[in-house]
C-alpha cells in the first residue's frame, strides 16, 4: 500500500506540474457552467410561466434539486466521457514510451501496486472534478430559497447524485487505465478510451428503439443510464454493482496487461 501511495504521489505531481489537470478542470467548469446557466434559466422561465397561470400546485412542485442540480449532474456524467480519456491516456502508455516502466518494474514493488497507485492518482483528480460539480448546487443553495422558504437544494439527493457521478467516473478511469496499458501512444489511448466510453453512452439511445430482452440488456449496459436513479437520490444496488464491477474488471485487466508485457 505504501508503494502504491508513492506511485500515486508521483502521478499527482505530474498531473499538477503539467497543464493537464488544470485544462481538465477548466474544461469541466466551463462546460458545467454552460449547462448550469441553461438549466437555471429554463427553471426561471417555467417559474414565471406557472406564476402567470396562477397555478400554485404546479409551482410548488418545481424545485431546484430536480430541475437544475440533478440534470446538471447527469450532464456531467456525459462530460466525464470526454474528460476521462485525457486523464488516463498518459498513465501507462507514457511509462512505456519513455522506458520508465523498466524503473518501476525493477523497483521492489509489485505490479499490482503500480496499477493501483496510478488508479488512486486519477481518482484524486476525479474527486476534484466532482468537487467542482458540487459548486453549482452550492451556488443555488447560497442564493436561492425553496418554495416553502426552506433550503433551495435537497442535499441528500445531491450527495447521492454526486456519489453516483464519482462511481461512474471511477469506472471510466479503470477503462481508461486499461486502454493506456495496451499502447505506447497517448493519442491512441485517449481515442480508444473515448470510443469505448462513448459506446457505453450511445448504447442507451438504441435502447429506446429496441424491444423485449434487448431493450433490457441495452438499458443495463448504458453507463449514463445507471446515473439516473442516483440523480433521483436513490442508491440502487444494481447501479452500484454496475460501476464497481467495471472498475474492478478494468483494474484486473490492467494488471494482466502490465504483467503480460514482461513475457513479450
Amino acid at each position, binding site marked *: 500500500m*505504501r*508503494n502504491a501511495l*508513492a*506511485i500515486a*504521489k*508521483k502521478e499527482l*505531481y*505530474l498531473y499538477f*506540474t*503539467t497543464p493537464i489537470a488544470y485544462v481538465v478542470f477548466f474544461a469541466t467548469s466551463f462546460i458545467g457552467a454552460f449547462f448550469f446557466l441553461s438549466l437555471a434559466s429554463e427553471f426561471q422561465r417555467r417559474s414565471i410561466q406557472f406564476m402567470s397561470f396562477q397555478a400554485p400546485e404546479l409551482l410548488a412542485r418545481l424545485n431546484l434539486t430536480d430541475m437544475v442540480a440533478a440534470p446538471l449532474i447527469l450532464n456531467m456524467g456525459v462530460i466525464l466521457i470526454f474528460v476521462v480519456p485525457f486523464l488516463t491516456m498518459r498513465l501507462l502508455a507514457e511509462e512505456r514510451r*519513455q*522506458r*520508465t*516502466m*523498466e*524503473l*518501476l*518494474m*525493477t*523497483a*521492489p*514493488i*509489485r505490479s499490482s501496486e503500480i496499477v493501483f497507485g496510478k488508479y488512486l492518482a486519477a481518482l484524486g483528480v476525479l474527486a476534484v472534478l466532482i468537487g467542482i460539480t458540487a459548486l453549482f448546487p452550492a451556488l443555488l443553495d447560497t442564493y436561492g430559497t425553496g418554495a416553502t422558504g426552506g433550503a433551495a437544494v435537497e442535499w441528500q439527493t445531491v450527495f447521492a447524485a454526486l456519489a453516483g457521478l464519482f462511481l461512474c467516473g471511477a469506472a471510466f478511469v479503470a477503462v481508461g487505465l486499461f486502454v493506456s496499458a495496451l499502447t505506447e501512444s497517448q493519442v491512441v489511448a485517449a481515442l480508444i478510451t473515448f470510443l469505448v466510453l462513448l459506446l457505453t453512452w450511445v448504447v442507451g439511445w438504441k435502447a429506446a428503439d429496441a424491444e423485449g430482452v434487448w431493450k433490457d440488456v441495452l438499458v443495463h449496459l448504458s453507463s449514463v443510464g445507471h446515473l439516473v436513479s442516483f440523480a433521483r437520490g436513490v442508491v440502487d444496488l444494481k447501479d452500484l454493482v454496475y460501476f464497481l464491477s467495471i472498475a474492478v474488471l478494468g483494474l484486473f485487466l490492467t494488471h494482466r496487461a502490465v504483467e503480460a508485457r*514482461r*513475457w*513479450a
Partner: protein
Amino acid sequence: MIDVSRLTKRYRDLVAIEDLSFTVDKGEILGFLGPNGAGKSTTMRILTGFQPATSGTARVAGFDVFEQPLEVKRRVGYLPEIPPLYPDMTVAAYLRFVAELKGIPRKGRKDEVDRVAHAAQVAHVMDRLIANVSKGYKQRVGIAQALLGSPDVLILDEPTVGLDPSQILEVRDLIKSLAGKHTVILSTHILQEVIATCDRVLIIARGRRVAHERLADLQARHPGKSLDEIFLDLTSDTRIGGPVEVPAQGRAA
C-alpha cells in the same frame, strides 16, 4: 553474489542469449562486453527481474530472480540502457520518488538523495527539470538513481554513453570507488573502461559466452595482442550476419 546458470532467452524465433553461465563474486567489478545485439541488455534485464528467462536460473545474493523477485530487486540498483527518467520532473523530485519506491524510510530519504546527488555530481542541477538538462546530466541522474539505498549489487548498462571525456573519467572513478562495497556488472563498448575499472571480464557474442576470466589471464592467453584485438578475435565470427535463428523444427507445428 551473482550466480547465473544455463540462462537462455528466446524472443519467438530469435535467440537473445543461449546457455549463459557466469558468476560474480562479492565486491567484484565485472566488465560485460559484447558487440551490439549480443544479448548484454537482455541478460541485465533478466538479472534485474524486468524480464523472465526462457530457461536456466539466475540468483542474486542467494535469491532466485524468478522465485523471489522482490528480494532481488531490493538488493539491486539498475541503470538501464536508456536512463528511466521523467522529463517533467525536477531532478530532486525524481530522486525523492525513486528513494520512496525503493522503500528508503522517510527520515533518511533526504540525506540519501543528497548523498547520491553528490556521488553522481548532480547536486547543482537538483531544481532543474530533467527535460532541460544535458544528456550527460541525464545519464548521471540515472546513475544517481541506481545508487540510491546503496544496493549490494549494481547493474549498469553502458553508464558512460553520452558523457564527455572528463565526465567519463569521473564516472570511472566513481565506479572504481564502489568496488569492495558493491558488486558491479558494467556493460560497455569501451575497452579502455574495462581496463581502467574491472577485475574480470565476461565477453559474449551471439548470446553465447566466449570469455569469462581475469583481465590479466585473458591477455596472457593472447600474448602480444591488445585487448581490442582480443575482443575482435573472440567476436569476429559474429560480426557478419544477423541474429541467430532457431532451427525451424517445433516452430512449424
